[in-house]
């Protein structure tokens, strides 16, 4: 049995980073050849605890470098520089169906990283670590400004990068769960895009009147962004995930007002009643609710609601009319939307129309629906409530953790390069090399 080691030194560099930045976890001064466990612990805003750990062996100099040495087993294995973040999962005994999402992005996510003697797998709370450090992970870079937007009846938040500008703009949409989700917009602003996160399903207007918003709401958001003195009005893009993709394609193709320089559609589809209102599009999905399947764990699979991909053109956004570059991000194990089948059909439609030079498809085997910023812990399923359904359902999103996490990392880098190229006109950006 190892006697307790003294003076083991643990460091994480940088100790304060953006959510998409890599860090280096280093253990020094351990006994050469000793078995050690490195563990991450995070308590999220709703009080749940998440942990990740890896089992390591110190080398002949008593050192472990997580970016170079393999974890033998744990919540991740192999050489995984960021495994301590992306493999975070609720501690044993937690409520099922949890998903990690930060609401207050003005404070950092705090993660305690500790090193323990031996190869431990449980009961960490009762063990005293050899060493521990605290790491801060931020969605907002210093100097990024957060500005709530209520103009024109909007429920939105604008994030402005630091500096005089003007900056290209970005409209950021999430999916059927509604709410005002800010973290991705905050992170995009940290990379130089004036980003507006928009609540288009549970806005103040909808909550007060019971009515859903329509095209005008998005057009108002576009105008407010375009007219901001620090926004370059001729360079505005839109990014949407899930149902947000439906809205993005609708606006990109059919809006007379919105003229996008680029569109990013993650885990979504072009299947929708053409020229339908937001409400009609939601209703269209609801009509097919009978096609919901359940797996052996009674988790709801919704991907069939839009299958088979219709041949009737009035049921698909006419991507052949797109005039701006489109980046599609697809998880091939998406159990919630038929993103892969839709991407194939979009490709065919654009080839027939002659605008396929605008299309880029990123397709990831074994990635699921929730393709989030890098190192966001993967949720294969979680409890979910859309604005249509009143009770919570255990929804199967899909994805295998390792591949899903790699997909998040790769997709994010490519999304940033795509936005940079189309909004800033740059070639070969070098400033993303540290991501």
């Amino acid at each position, binding site marked *: 049995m190892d006697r307790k080691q003294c003076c083991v*030194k643990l460091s994480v560099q940088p100790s304060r980073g953006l959510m998409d930045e890599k860090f280096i976890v280093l253990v020094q001064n351990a006994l050469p050849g000793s078995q050690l466990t490195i563990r991450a612990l995070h308590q999220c805003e709703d009080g749940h605890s998440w942990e990740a750990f890896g089992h390591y062996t110190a080398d002949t100099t008593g050192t472990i470098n997580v970016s170079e040495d393999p974890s033998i087993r744990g919540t991740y294995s192999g050489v995984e520089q960021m495994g301590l973040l992306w493999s975070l999962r609720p501690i044993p005994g937690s409520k099922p169906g949890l998903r990690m999402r930060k609401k207050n992005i003005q404070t950092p996510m705090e993660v*305690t990283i500790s090193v323990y003697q031996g190869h431990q797998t449980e009961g960490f709370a009762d063990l005293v670590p050899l060493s521990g450090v605290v790491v801060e992970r931020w969605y907002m870079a210093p100097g990024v400004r957060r500005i709530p937007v209520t103009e024109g009846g909007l429920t939105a938040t604008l994030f402005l990068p630091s500096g005089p500008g003007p900056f290209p703009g970005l409209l950021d949409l999430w999916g059927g769960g509604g709410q005002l989700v800010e973290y991705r917009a905050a992170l995009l602003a940290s990379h130089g895009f004036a980003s507006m996160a928009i609540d288009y399903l549970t806005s103040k207007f909808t909550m007060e009147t019971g009515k859903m918003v329509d095209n005008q709401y998005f057009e108002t958001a576009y105008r407010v962004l375009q007219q*901001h003195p620090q926004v370059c009005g001729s360079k505005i893009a839109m990014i949407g995930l899930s149902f947000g993709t439906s809205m993005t394609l609708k606006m990109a193709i059919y809006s007379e007002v919105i003229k996008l320089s680029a569109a990013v559609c993650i885990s979504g589809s072009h299947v929708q009643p053409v020229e339908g209102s937001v409400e009609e599009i939601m209703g269209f999905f609801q009509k097919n609710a009978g096609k919901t399947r359940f797996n052996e764990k009674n988790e709801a699979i919704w991907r069939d609601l839009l299958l088979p991909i219709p041949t009737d053109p009035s049921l698909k956004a006419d991507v052949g009319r797109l005039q701006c570059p489109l980046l599609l991000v697809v998880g091939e194990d998406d159990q919630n939307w038929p993103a892969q089948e839709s991407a194939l059909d979009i490709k065919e439609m654009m080839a027939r129309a002659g605008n396929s030079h605008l299309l880029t498809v990123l397709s990831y085997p074994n990635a699921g629906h929730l393709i989030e910023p890098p190192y966001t812990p993967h949720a294969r399923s979680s409890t979910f409530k859309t604005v249509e359904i009143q009770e919570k359902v255990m929804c199967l999103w899909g994805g295998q953790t390792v591949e899903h996490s790699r997909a998040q990392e790769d997709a994010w880098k490519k999304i940033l390069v795509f936005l940079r190229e189309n909004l800033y006109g*740059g070639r070969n950006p070098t400033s993303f090399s540290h991501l």
Partner: protein
Amino acid sequence: MTQAVPPILSVTPSRALVDEKFQVLVENLPPGCPVTLRSLHRSEDEDDWEAYGHYVSDHRGVVSVSEDLSFGGMYTGKEPMGLLWSMRPVPGSRKGLRLRKINVCTPMLVNISVHSGHEGFRDRTPLASALAERWYMAPGVKRIDINKQGVQGTLFIPPGPGPFPALLDMWGGGAGLLEYRSALLASRGYVSFSLDYLRSEHLSADVEFKYFETAFNIIRNHPQVIPDRVGILGSSLGSMVAFNLTAYSTIIKPRCIVCISSNHYHPPGTTLKAGFKILSNRTNDLSKINCPMLLVNGCDDQNWPTVETVARLLREGGKEHLLSRLAYPGAGHLIEPPFSPHFRATKFIILNSKEKVILLWGGHTKPHSDAQEDSWRKILSFLQLHLYHSPSVKANL
């Protein structure tokens, strides 16, 4: 609004500890474009400090401060951190200023901006800017005010269960209690106690040797400190105290000491004031020192005469093997943590007479800044060896 999209400036990491490097990158410039990179900081005293370098973008429209040469400004050549260490008060500022952070719980904010052209860049609005945070305290470091057994100061404890090696940290005169070095040392894994020993009430009460011994023991007995791994770090007058404690105390045994900008063998009485009783009767006999010692000095130190015969004195006492020396040509007296601006002369208040003078500290900016960077790294490495190194694999000294 249809202006052209501007260049992109990024500082990575945007939040860092003060001894960490950053990379300043400008992209999306036209190729071959002359620009000026500028840093701007408003101090706690509301003075503005700045630095700048003149650059030209490459054929890709990129300027990388880490890779490219500055053609002029406050620094020239390839200087990744020039925008910090070459900072000076902006034209028109008060004279003799010194940049020292008093509140270490908040970061130092530095605005980095890029301007078109070289001459007259200040007259033009920046093309882009980014804010960098420079921290003395890592996340999880705890700051504790100490007022115990008559001893006063501030204690910083690293995050984690401990126990940790520790340091007694002592500055010299003229500045009040400075916490930033101890905060940074705690961020590097040492419990560090910045000791307040130069306040007028201490002097009038005749600072006793005992005060320092008590302070050392408070650290030693702290539940999160490993009792036989406590060292002393002193600069200027503080290093004199460190020598004396180490040589003459029968109670405390530091595991190692670091002395920055000291003059341990200067004949007592000639530059020391009457109130410094602890030092007035000692002869600075180095042969009594029994632990590893690191001496850091600037050869252009105008404030204290340079150390030139240390090795001889130690050799005479049979203790040369304990000594490591770093003597930096062109560096002055105030050898601070890395990337701090250099001060050749600053305002100083002489303790006893309360006279305001401008003291010439010496050093030339570039070699002094190099000395700060190199010495800090070597100090940390010395401390790591002597305070963290595991006893079971320790080589015989």
